[in-house]
């Protein structure tokens, strides 16, 4: 049984490596084919460098080499842990990504947990009281949220809470003009609240609707009737059977939703000028910062892939049926 599981994880890892290679190739081609000149973005448009000097740099960077060779050069460096230097931030790409991922990670983690827990509870209640007034209101709100673009929700939140009510700062991760050393935890939390709120709101409708749907499926199953016939109260049925049956799909979908969370995060960050991966991506794109863009693409792929991997493994571990199949096969 553990052999099988080990094999499964191994094959997932191989898939991940293949995926990363694919992502790198595609990202590389897209970026090199884009109408941007890394040389120009490095030295600036109104540089006084001579054409020969420019040629020399291009030669040194390998910009004149054929595409496959350029890719291999880049990939070779990446394998050694060298992602190059970010043109935008004048720092090694890996450092930029590290600090930015930390900011984004906190933001995403909070929104993920909040929307996951809150959405689950709301979904369970809606499913139990299907067709009731509470269910209908929540469902309507979810549909509206689902169809609203992230940046629109972000701007709405910003307008209401920062501009109109003045409760929260307009953006950034810390008060503007304060030295990094002086920034307190309180400042950070204060600046985090609105982005987290936005991202939670963006993410929650999916969780509620999914949980609600699963919930309805489950409570219409025969085993719920049987539990009733055996004298279990509603609360006992929920505790003993419903939660047991809904927990796995709910948790799985939470991990599988990493990619959407990531997309929402990028947009929310830009609305709030929050210094995470999302804003870094925008900045990198604006500045034709090729090394940074490639690095972000790679790390984002890893992040999303890990979410899916966890989702897959969870199912394998917790569902007795898949567990058995793995043992028998």
């Amino acid at each position, binding site marked *: 049984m553990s052999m099988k599981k080990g094999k499964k994880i191994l094959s997932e890892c191989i898939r991940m490596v293949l995926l990363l290679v694919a992502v790198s190739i595609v990202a590389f081609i897209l970026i090199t084919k884009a109408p941007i000149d890394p040389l120009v973005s490095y030295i600036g448009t109104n540089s006084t460098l001579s054409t020969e000097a420019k040629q020399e740099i291009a030669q040194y960077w390998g910009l004149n080499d054929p595409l496959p060779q350029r890719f291999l050069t880049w990939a070779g460096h990446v394998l050694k842990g060298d992602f190059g230097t970010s043109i935008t931030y004048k720092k090694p790409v890996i450092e930029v990504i590290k600090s930015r991922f930390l900011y984004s990670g906190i933001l995403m983690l909070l929104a993920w947990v909040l929307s996951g827990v809150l959405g689950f509870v709301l979904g369970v209640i809606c499913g139990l009281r299907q067709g009731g007034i509470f269910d209908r209101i929540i469902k309507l709100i979810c549909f509206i949220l689902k169809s609203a673009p992230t940046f629109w929700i972000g701007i709405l939140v910003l307008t209401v809470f920062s501009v109109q009510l003045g409760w929260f700062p307009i953006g950034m991760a810390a008060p503007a003009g304060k030295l990094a050393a002086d920034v307190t935890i309180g400042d950070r939390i204060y600046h985090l609240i609105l982005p987290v709120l936005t991202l939670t709101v963006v993410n929650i409708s999916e969780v509620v609707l999914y949980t609600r749907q699963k919930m309805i499926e489950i409570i219409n199953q025969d085993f719920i009737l049987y539990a009733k016939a055996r004298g279990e109260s509603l609360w006992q049925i929920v505790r003993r059977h419903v939660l047991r*049956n809904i927990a796995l799909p709910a948790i799985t979908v939470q991990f599988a939703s990493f990619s959407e969370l990531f997309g929402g995060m990028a947009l929310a960050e830009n609305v709030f000028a929050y210094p995470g991966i999302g804003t870094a991506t925008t900045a990198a794109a604006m500045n034709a910062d090729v090394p940074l863009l490639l690095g972000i693409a790679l790390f984002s792929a890893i992040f999303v892939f890990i979410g899916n991997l966890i989702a897959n493994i969870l199912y394998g571990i917790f569902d007795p049926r898949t567990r058995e199949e793995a043992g028998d096969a």
Partner: protein
Amino acid sequence: MEEKVLRNVLEINDLVVSFEMYQKGFRKKKLEVLHSLSLDVKEGEIVAVVGSSGSGKSVLAHAVLGLLPKNATMTGNIKYQGELLTPKERKKYLGREIAFIPQSVDYLDPLMKVGKQVVGVYSSKERQRQLFEKYQLKKEVEDMYPFQLSGGMARRILISAAVTEEPKLIIADEPTPGLNVELAMDTLRHFRKLADNGTSILMITHDIDLAFQVADRIAVFYAGTIVEISPTGDFLAGGKNLRHPYSKAFITALPQNEFQPLKGTQPYAGDLPEGCLFAPRCPKAEIACNGKIAMRDLREGKVRCIHAT
């Protein structure tokens, strides 16, 4: 059976169950699936309700157990030990005095170990182990999940789960589907034993041969009502001792008898004849059969037919 007058453990009078259905568009339509159905089960007695598959027999079980869906309405009454079985009363008895044996393992929680499910909310681990021993289930079985059970194991699990609290009444809905003869007989023997110890059993089945094996009385279910209830002996003797034309035809149609099939089909719940539901197929039908036909006592049984003798 002993001669003393036995009490009714379950008594159903004029039970009507309809479902509200949405037809094409938004028009609601009421579909009556059980029509003034009356039935009683006495102490320590097995009554088999026999009817063809898909004719709504399960609705009867669900009505007694309070499992009807939200769109169902019910009139008539159900009495347990002489008391009206209201939702509140039912709550008190379900799982303790009244137990349910469902059709299949689909009625077990797929993610809960079966031992824990047999224990349920009222019983104990010790009792479960004791029952597993009694029904020859190995100890390992308690740690299995429903999908790992064989058909025979599943049956015995469901029976164990039903009898943890030594119920007075068991409702069994198609208790032997998909079992080979041996396993089916095994199940029925368990039923007989329970009944001999005083438990009343209402067994709903499409298999009359099974009913012959264990039932004390057989109720014939036709188009959503019960047309005849008679001692099993009358059925075993072939058609001549039976009361209702449908039961007679039904028994005559059996392979071991004349194997003469009855022409026509059961009427659809949305398109019922007035008066006797069997009239369109009855050789003895006459004008009077279009009126309301009540259940009446006749010889040792009951029948819903004006001509029955």
